[in-house]
């Protein structure tokens, strides 16, 4: 059975998380921010690991 991608709210303090994400980008150039985002995506994908879940996430993101 394929593990379904969790699309329900799953982050305890959404505002804190969001602020932290933006703070990481603060003072960075566009190129530096792009690089940070790419690293973050890779780190999170590896943490998830399950290629079925990753596939669903990529599809959802690609839908826009």
């Amino acid at each position: 059975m394929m593990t379904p991608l969790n699309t329900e709210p799953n982050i305890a303090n959404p505002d804190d998380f969001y602020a932290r994400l933006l703070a990481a980008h603060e003072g960075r150039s566009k190129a530096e921010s792009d690089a940070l985002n790419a690293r973050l995506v890779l780190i999170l994908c590896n943490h998830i690991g399950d290629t079925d879940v990753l596939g669903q996430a990529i599809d959802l993101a690609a839908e826009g």
Partner: protein
Amino acid sequence: MFDDRYTVAHKIYPYERSPDQDKASAVRHPVVIVGGGPVGIATALDLGQQGVPVLVLDDHEGIGQGSRAICFSKRSLEIADRYGCAGPMIDKGVVWNLGKVFHRDEKVFEFNLLPEEGHKYPAFINLQQPYFERFMVDRLRQLQAAGAPIQLRGKNRVDGIEVHDDHVVLEVMTPDGPYSLEADWLVACDGANSPLRTRLGYEFTGKVFQDSFLIADIRMTGDTEFPTERWFWFEPSHGQGASTLLHKQPDGVWRVDFQIGWDIDRKEEMKEDNIRRRLDAFLGPVRYEIVWSSIYTFQSKRMARFRHGPVIFAGDAAHQVSPFGARGANSGMQDADNLGWKLGLVVQGKAPAKLLDSYSDERVHGADENILNSTRSTDFITPKSEISKIFRDAVLGLARTVAFARPLVNSGRLSVPCVYDGLSLNGPDALTGGPARTRVGAPMVDAPAGDDWLLGLLGGDFRLMTIDAEAPERLEVDRITVTRVALSAKGNPDLAARYLGDATSAVYLMRPDQHVAARWPGFDAAEVTRALKIATRRA
């Protein structure tokens, strides 16, 4: 009227007039191979060892100059072992295991091929292609001396071909003028630009990569030595290429490979001063001589199918890949390995001609796997868009400090033989708990076997390998003989791990190219007969 296209390094098959040239009508040969490169000669060795008459035509009088292919895989060595010429290759070749990857001159990480114990041959050797070819031609001469029906004709260029349903007619040019030949089967091993493929108008489709690579083979003349490792730089700071590779070859020669872009002036780049300028920027103040240099571009293309009636294509003539991963010459050796026994059986009337369609199916499968892998390497090495470069650099950055990113670094995925999963010659895979790596369709994996090695013991015919199982010593099915190789896994943990897995006994039916045709926990005559018929297309 008959100029060489390239400089010959070893003139070992000079033109000699053959009696065929003085016959009133064209002489018919069972098999003619066009092209005396590694794939053509390997195919000739395979057929010659089976006693099948084979004629090789080459438009030169020996082996071309230049190191060209330098990385030969374990599987290629195992195939060469079956042809009796792996010994000199391993003696001359450089064995390497350690690779280092750099990004902008900082080491990202290093890897070790960590060869698994219990194999006769290492994962890879580096050896200049002319040596590899020479050792095969030496072997061909040995076989000829022992009476094998192999002919090799230098300066015999095919200038015309007429394809009929069951044979071809060739117009062959020689220094003495033209003559005609006929062949029941023609194997075209005439390289990436295959004149035969072009002449016959068969499509060859895929991608052309817009990039050029400058190869310089250098020999150190001062005190500097580099280690026997594969060093690969992404975006080296010396600025002499988008990537650079340094790799050791025999005779104290190092291969330096600079990726220099698409829009270049070839003539200008090939000038020694310009090559030295790049090398000096890369190497710093060391003394060296340039042994050979060349600029190459590459493409990933293949023919839709490799058999067209009596004409069969093999090696670069049938498929081409980018060089990352050493999947060119090594896949060509697997073509010869796959084709040899099938063509042998068909010529000897022991299998129907449709068996040769399985050569196309299986090797198209192999070519697709190689194209997929080498294209992915190319995309990593030369990112095609801004975002792919951002991700590529992110991977390289992370790989320095965290292990998870290292498997994503792709500077070439090294050639491994393909598994013919789900293809038509596969029999039953009935060994419950059997290891996946030796499943039906996979190449047999080497293992120690007493004082010998398993693959050497199995050889190049149909075999019934029994592990702690009973079976007759010999089986004959429609003129094909299967002999038994009886082994025990007791005291042989490598054999147990590679062939038994969770099973306690096993019977493997092996094809002559050492791929698994079928496997069971025990012997059953009807089952083996059925699997043999499937594997030879007589089912």
